[in-house]
């Protein structure tokens, strides 16, 4: 049901070799920097930069495209509805019965396009950021970055349970169907599924508890344990400078543009 984001972590590329700590920080900086940007041309430039990063990381675009679907579903209404308005200012373009549709003008279209591109770019950058290291390594990197320990532990456990739960969900559906159950859109279906999901939670909760016990009985005291060790090389810093450099550059460019305007 859920495919893992790190299935391409085994590839080899400059981004895969990049120290996960610097990688996460640099790309996060870039994402925030792009979100603070309100200039269509520079937003498009950022998207190109993101595409280049993805290309270097060798993660297949088809994989990413499948994932972009959800963001696109969210922003689609903005793209469709935003440039138009039913009542209010704008250029009248159509009458449908008693409804009048107005066009808000080219600025609105630009704004809608900017929203969509920003949303897509930010998602695209997630792939080189965490799709290029195994999830447990990324989590260890977060710990090294002094994220609160309890959050790190929750991340690690939740990540594991997502897959357990979705597997269990599949098993449960199997068992329901084998006793003649069929999903329809009625109250019986909702209630039956709710009850079944409730049981699933209880079972998963008890399993989570047992796994936690198992970890404790193997000496776990809240620190992430893998054999992976981090070392910083000049190349890691170089990558960080390039990515953070771009994040700063786009804002400097805006500043210049504004000054020029005056």
């Amino acid at each position, binding site marked *: 049901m859920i495919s893992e984001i790190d299935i391409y972590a085994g590839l080899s590329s400059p981004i895969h070799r990049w120290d996960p700590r610097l990688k996460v920080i640099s790309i996060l900086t870039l994402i925030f920097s792009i979100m603070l940007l309100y200039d269509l041309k520079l937003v498009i430039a950022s998207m190109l930069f993101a595409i280049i990063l993805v290309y270097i990381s060798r993660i297949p675009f088809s994989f990413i495209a499948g994932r972009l679907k959800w963001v696109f579903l969210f922003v689609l209404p903005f793209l469709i509805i935003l440039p138009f308005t039913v009542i209010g200012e704008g250029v009248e373009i159509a009458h449908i019965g008693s409804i009048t549709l107005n066009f808000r003008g080219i600025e609105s279209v630009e704004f809608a396009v900017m929203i969509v591109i920003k949303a897509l770019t930010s998602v695209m950058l997630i792939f080189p950021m965490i799709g290029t290291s195994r999830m447990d390594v990324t989590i260890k990197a977060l710990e090294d970055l002094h994220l609160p320990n309890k959050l790190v532990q929750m991340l690690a456990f939740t990540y594991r349970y997502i897959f357990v739960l979705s597997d269990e969900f599949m098993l*449960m559906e199997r068992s329901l169907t*084998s006793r*003649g159950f069929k999903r329809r859109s009625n109250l019986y279906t909702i209630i039956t599924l709710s009850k*079944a999901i409730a049981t699933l939670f209880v079972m998963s909760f008890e399993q989570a508890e047992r796994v936690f016990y198992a970890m404790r009985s193997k000496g776990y005291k809240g620190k992430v344990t893998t054999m992976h060790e981090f070392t910083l090389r000049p190349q890691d810093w170089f990558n960080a400078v390039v990515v953070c450099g771009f994040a700063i550059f786009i804002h400097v460019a805006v500043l210049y543009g504004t000054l020029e305007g005056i």
Partner: protein
Amino acid sequence: MPAIKVQDLNYKYHDGTVALDNVSFEIEKGESVALIGPNGAGKSTLLLHLNGILHSVTSRESIRILDESVDPKKIHEMPKKIGIVFQNADDMLFMPLLGDDVAFGPINLGLDKEEVQRRVKDALEMVGLAGYENRVPHHLSGGEKRRAALATVLSMESEILAMDEPTANLDPKSRRELIGILRKLKEKGKTLLIITHDVNAIPELAERVIVLNKTVIADGPTRDIFSNTEMLVEIGLDVPVITQLFEILQCFGYPCDVLPLSIGGAVTNLTETMEGGDGHVHLHIHKHTHSGISSARNKYHDHAEKHE
């Protein structure tokens, strides 16, 4: 008309694991058959095909249940014909009260209220859980859970019953009680297919054994299968302990052609042998006794126990 007919069934999991490779067999109505095979042999996978829960393009024509092919779109209609008890009882109990769980199948079959209640009562009685309607399935003990899971399937009164390791994880008493329930079902004429690793239980449950290891390795009467020890040992299976012991008794000169498979069989065998031999049997050590014993034992035990 065969109850279950499987013809050239193949199945591969997403990750490329071949789980079933040209599996074919037929089970007649009223037969009770044990399905054995090593871990990972594809037994559970096969079971899930029988009512269409797992399927592939080709599986549709490969399986016929009561002479009709299995349509994966109509899984919800299969319970009339075949009821499946899963490997893990917890996967089958997900309603707040046991009564609801046992009623679940009959309600989905669209039966009226009285009939549903009758079936719930009957099914719970059958497995020895009469009066447990208002218990929380989740709080039952391991052995009770397994019987409860069986009841949720019995209440659908399907013609055929297929179950995955019904005796695993049970304590000896619960195991014996469960074997008793299965024997009752057999006597009632249900068609049974039982997956198990518990070779000592098979002689009491099934007159026929199918050995699976991706494909069908052997298929025949229980006695014949268990006398083919070479084949069993090769794929990592055992014969019942009683059979092993009688092989050793043979080395001491005990006269028997057909090795018994269970304690019951052993008693019959001993009695008949003695009655056929003037009420006596001599056991003695002869020159081949020791070599016979060690070869009989090596067959089964790579890590043979050295001490008691």
